[in-house]
Structure formats: C-alpha cells, structure tokens
C-alpha cells in the first residue's frame, strides 16, 4: 500500500531530469514537492498523532525512504522528517512541540538538526558550542558542521553545552548571529556549516536539556542511520537493476555481455549483497520499532548503516565498471547513483565506524 503510493509518486512527481536540474544549486530541493510529500503524510510518519503526525514507525519510514531513494528524490526526508522530527519529538518543551511538530508534518516548517561539529566525531555529546545564559535565554557561540538538508531549512535544532549540561535549542534560520554556508557535495546537494556568533535563543526555544536532550539526540542519530540505510538500499537496488538491464542487452563479441560467466558471477555477488542488506534492514528496523534500550538501539542502527553502506558502495562502483566508458559519463545515470551512495555512506558515520561501534556494543571491546 505505502510502497505503491511511493512508487506512484516517483513515477509521476519526480524524475532524474529534475535531480540533474537541482544539483549544484543553492535551492537543492523544491518546497512544492516537499508539500506534496507532506500531503501524503510522509513527513509526519515519525511524529506522534497528538502533534499532528501519523505516529507510525521506522518500518513505514524505511519504505518511503527506500522508494524515494530509487529515484534519487532530493527532498531532505531523512534530515528533516527523521533526524529533526525524532529529536524534536523526544524534546521536553510541550509548547514548542505543539507549535512546531504539526507544522513540520504539514511541510510548513523545515527544520534541520545541527549537532555535529567535527568530521568523524559522531558522539552527540561531543559538543563545544557554548550556550551562555543571557537575559532569560541563551547566547550561542560555536560552529556546527555537515548539516544535511540545510539549504532551505527554516530553522535548526542546535545542540550546545551550558554550565549545567547539554541543551537542544530551536534556532530560526534568520536569527541574528547565525550564519549558514553551504559546502557542495559529490551528489549535487550540500552540507550546511552553521556559524553561531552570539546568536540569541529565548527560553521558549529550549527544546530539551540534560539527559533528555542527549537521549533525544542519540535516538535521532540512530534513527537517522537506519533510514539513511533504507535510502542506500533504494540506491543499490536501482543501480543493480540498471546494471542487469545492461548486461542483458549490451552485445559484444556477438553475444550479450551478461552471458559471460565472469560478469555473471560478479552480478550474483552484488545481488547477494543487496539481499543481505535488505534482510538486515528489515530485521533491524523491526527491532528498532520495538523500542529497545539505547545500547541495543545503537547496535541495530550500526548494523544497518554498516551493511547498507558497504553493499551500496560495492554495487554502485561495479555499476560504472559494468557499463564501461558510458558509465563514466556525466550524461549516464549510473554516476548519479554512485555519487548519492558516496554521500550517504560518509554521512552519519562510515561503515568502518559503525562496525567498531557494533564491536563495542556486542563484544564489549574498547575501541
């Protein structure tokens, strides 16, 4: 049902020409398409019903993300409807949640989560951004990096450290003292760098603090990893389909190249990796939807991200090789999938990082 509506949306509402048109632009995605996605309920999948969402789980979100990723849909589903939505849903500030979550689900406000500060530092508690108490609110100083979905974000959920611990703050994009720069990514999208220079947040903008803030950030990160994995699954599926079509139809030496055993066996190995990724994704997402404690949640998320990243990397690289010279052209679509896989692999932690986190959690190894 959900799968079909995603497929229908992809068939009618988006195509790779739009993806090509938007890549490298500062717009990155289209608000009109975002509103359509909201109309289908997708932005509110993870938002509780009492805040205007559907109150569904990651299983449903994974179906949507996977289907949209097959078409490389550039709207920031994972960044906003998973990372930001999960963080805000886990916040303590009822007034803020009642105000912003329904708008997020409706596509009227598009927040991004600004939590990370250094490359390869993925502990949500590793925060150097300072929040100084000031006239009933906070004054923010620091730099947030690698913010996905930032291009047209209306607001940021910013993590910061106070003398009393960690806080999560709602910061409108146009707040004084906040400046956003965009870094161009391989896939034509961008990471935002948010520079905070005495940016002011009123007390009403404190979403969560202390343990609740860290828990909300940790859950958002893990759920983001899981749905980034679902996106990688969609990317690898489509890339492998393209490769198999080519193997069946491209004729050299008087035969379809897919009749050569050397290529057949490589294609089979890619298929096995794709099936493994899909099996892990479904099993671990179901486990996440049962609401496990933080260590089990982290282990499940890392399992997904590690497997999906490796499988997608392998499949999209082989897609270029299978296609030969045409695969190396910008005109041919295989490259779009390779580049999307590159970004999704690096974002929210590479496979090797996730494997090490899994080792810590499953074998009690210090790494």
């Amino acid at each position, binding site marked *: 049902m959900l799968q079909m509506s995603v497929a229908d949306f992809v068939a009618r509402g988006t195509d790779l020409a739009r993806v090509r048109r938007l890549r490298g632009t500062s717009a990155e995605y289209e608000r009109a398409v975002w509103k359509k996605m909201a109309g289908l309920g997708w932005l509110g999948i993870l938002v509780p019903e009492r805040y205007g969402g559907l109150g569904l789980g990651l299983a449903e979100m994974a179906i949507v993300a996977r289907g949209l990723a097959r078409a490389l849909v550039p709207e920031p589903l994972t960044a906003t409807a998973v990372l930001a939505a999960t963080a805000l849903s886990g916040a303590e500030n009822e007034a803020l949640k009642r105000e912003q979550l329904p708008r997020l689900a409706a596509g009227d406000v598009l927040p991004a989560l600004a939590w990370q500060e250094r490359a390869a530092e993925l502990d949500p508690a590793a925060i150097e951004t300072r929040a100084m108490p000031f006239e009933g609110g906070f004054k923010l100083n620091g730099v947030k990096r690698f913010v996905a979905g930032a291009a047209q974000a209306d607001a940021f959920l910013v993590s910061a450290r106070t003398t009393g611990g960690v806080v999560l703050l709602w910061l409108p994009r146009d707040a004084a003292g906040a400046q956003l720069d965009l870094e161009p990514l391989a896939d034509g999208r961008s990471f935002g760098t948010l520079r905070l220079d005495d940016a002011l947040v009123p007390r009403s903008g404190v979403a969560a603090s202390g343990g609740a803030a860290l828990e909300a950030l940790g859950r958002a990160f893990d759920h983001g990893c899981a749905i980034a994995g679902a996106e990688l699954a969609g990317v690898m599926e489509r890339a492998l389909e393209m490769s198999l079509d080519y193997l*069946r139809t491209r004729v050299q030496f008087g035969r*379809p190249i897919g009749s050569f*055993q050397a290529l057949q066996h490589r294609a089979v190995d890619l298929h*096995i990796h794709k099936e493994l990724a899909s099996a*892990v994704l479904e099993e671990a997402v179901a486990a996440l939807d049962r609401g496990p404690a933080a260590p089990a949640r982290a282990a499940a998320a890392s399992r997904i991200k590690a497997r999906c990243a490796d499988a997608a990397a392998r499949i999209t690289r082989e897609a270029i090789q299978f296609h030969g010279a045409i695969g190396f052209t910008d005109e041919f679509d295989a490259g779009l999938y390779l580049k999307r896989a590159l970004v999704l692999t690096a974002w929210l932690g590479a496979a090797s990082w996730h*494997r*090490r986190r899994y080792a810590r959690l499953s074998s009690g190894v*210090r790494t």
Partner: protein
Amino acid sequence: MNPSSARPDYNAMSDEDFRREVRAFFEREYPPYLRYILHRARWHDMKEWWRKLYERGWIAPNWPRERGGMALDAGKMVIYLEEMERHGVARPPDQGITQVGPLIMRFGTAAQQEHYLPRTLSGEYIWCQGYSEPNAGSDLAGLQTAAVLEGEYFVVNGQKIWTSLADDATHIYLLARTGKGTKKQQGISFLLVDLKTPGITLHPIRNLAGHEEFCQVFFDDVRVPRANLVGELDDGWTVAKALLGFERLSIGSPRRPQYALNRLEAVARAKGLLDDPGFLDRFIALKLDIEDGAALYGRFVEQVKRGEPLGQDVSMLKVWTMETWQRLTDLLIEAGAEQGVVAGVHDVAGVEADFLNPFYYARPATIYGGSSEIQRNILAKTVLKLPG
C-alpha cells in the same frame, strides 16, 4: 517398537513447547563428547544415538507417521534442525532418512517400500550415495557408469567417487546409464544396490584432514535385480532431482559458522587480539557477515513456515554461509599464529582451541552440494535472468 499410534502429533504443539521438548531431549540424551565434532560422524560413533532416536520415534523427522516418522511440518522441521545445530548434534549417516527413503516413498513400488523403509528406519540398512564419478562432478549428467539389462538383472560396470561414508554403509543408491537419449539427462536410471553384492570394491580416500570420510566405489559386472529399479527405466534423473529445497536451506544455516565465530572470539579474547585494531576490524566484519547472513536465513525460514516453496534464490544462502564460514576459519588459523598450524587441541590462556580441524572441515563446504560456482550459475540464470 515404534508404534505410530502412541506418537503425539507434534505439529499440534506450540512452537515453544516443541522446541523445549526437543532441546531437553538433546541435552539429556546426546553424548557430550560428540557435540560439535569437526568431521563427518561415523556409524560407530552414532549408532547408540541412532538407537535412542529410533526408540523415541525421532530418527525420521521428515517421514510420515505411518512410516514411523515425526511428520513435522516445515516450521517444526526448522525448529528440530535449529535445535540440533544449537546443541552441536552431529548428523548420523542419515542419507537413508533424508534422501533415499523419501524417494522410495515417492517413486518406489509397494514391495520396495515394505522392504527398505522399516530397515532404513531401524538402522539395519545404512545408505550411501552413488552419484559423482571421476568425470562427472559438477556436470553430474555426464555420468558413465553403465547398467545393462540382461533378463531380470542389471549388470553394472563403472566407478563412483566421493561417496561419503561408503565403508559405513550397507547399501548404495546409484545413478547409472541404462540408455541413450537426446539429452544427457535422459537414459539414466536410479538403482538400489546391496554393497555385499559380488563385484563391488571400496577404496577409501584420505581427505586433507587425514580422515577417510569418502570412498571410491568400483562396480565390476555387478548383478542388480531388476526389482531394485526405482521409478521408470531411463528416468532416474527425475527421481534424483526431486530432492531439493529443504536441503539447501539447512545447508545454508548460520549455526556452524556461528559456533566457529564463538570459538574465534574466545581465542581472540584470550590472546588479547581484540585490542589490535587491525584484527578487530576483520573480526567484527566477519561477525556481522554471519549475523547478517542469519537475517537472510531467517527470511527463507519464514517463507518455509508460511508454507511457500523455496525458489532457486535459496542458493545464495549456501554461497554466503559457506564462504563466510571459510573466511572465519582462515582468520582462526591466523589467530593461532605458529600454534595455528600445529595439529591438535591447544590450551590458549585457558581456552581450548583446535585451529586446523575447523579449517579443514570448512574447505569442502563450497564444493559439496553444488559448488559455489554452480550455485552462482544457477542464480545468474534463474534469479537474475542473465542470458545463457
């Protein structure tokens, strides 16, 4: 012995109750020194266990109740196999139960069923498989062993090879060429042969582990009664092919590699190898390869439990599980360093470890039951629909 009327209907039990009962029986009755043995179990190792299973009516989980089996449905069968693997229960020389018995039930005459099935169940008849030949391995249909009909007897000449546990067996089931056809799969017949028949000689073959688990079997004017033909003359390929599906699921179970992984983890911990980031990266990648393979296995198990037939895609499970198992035993050898190439069981800082036997045991896994290359050919053609 073995009255079918007294036997419970296991399929009516809840999965949990059934699992508990199987587990308790294995834990209570299975000889501890035979747990997780690192070679094919021999008849002299296993005959006591066979007798216990037989007396309980559990030797043939796949057979119907009226034949003395447990008549387990697919879901219960998976549980039975999972519990065997969980406890490290070895497969006895059970080809009569898993292979030829079901074929006789399906294709055999009433007389064959009456004669062979009870004796197979009780362990009086122990079977081995006569399929492969020196020039017919992966290309099994290229087999040349000839069975020429003379009156009421087939006269069999030729040789079979890689016949597992032939020297434990009393009987062999055989594919032999009885005619010519337009395709090489035609003209093959399926015969049941008593290994005491004059003209049969066995030569054990020593494998890399030093064990004599398989044999060469020579047939020199061996006279086999015509009544021992199963199925139609020249149609033995159909008979042999009927046994697929479930076997490829159980062969792809992650339990054996999981056991090997636990050994590797214990050794690595004892030697402090998990503190070495290079080793740790490889170890954890393998651990995830096994756990993720278990997720894939779980999908096929669910399919079986829903009563859906397994497709050709189950081949991927065998490729992945067996190749992962091998890579794991490769790392185990490496973890052993100099000790890794010394035969026998070692004491590694209080952990018992055998390095070489697991390595040897995993080697043929990508060869038997259809090599990895054959499985990949199957997947390429039937699942990926790549051109031939």
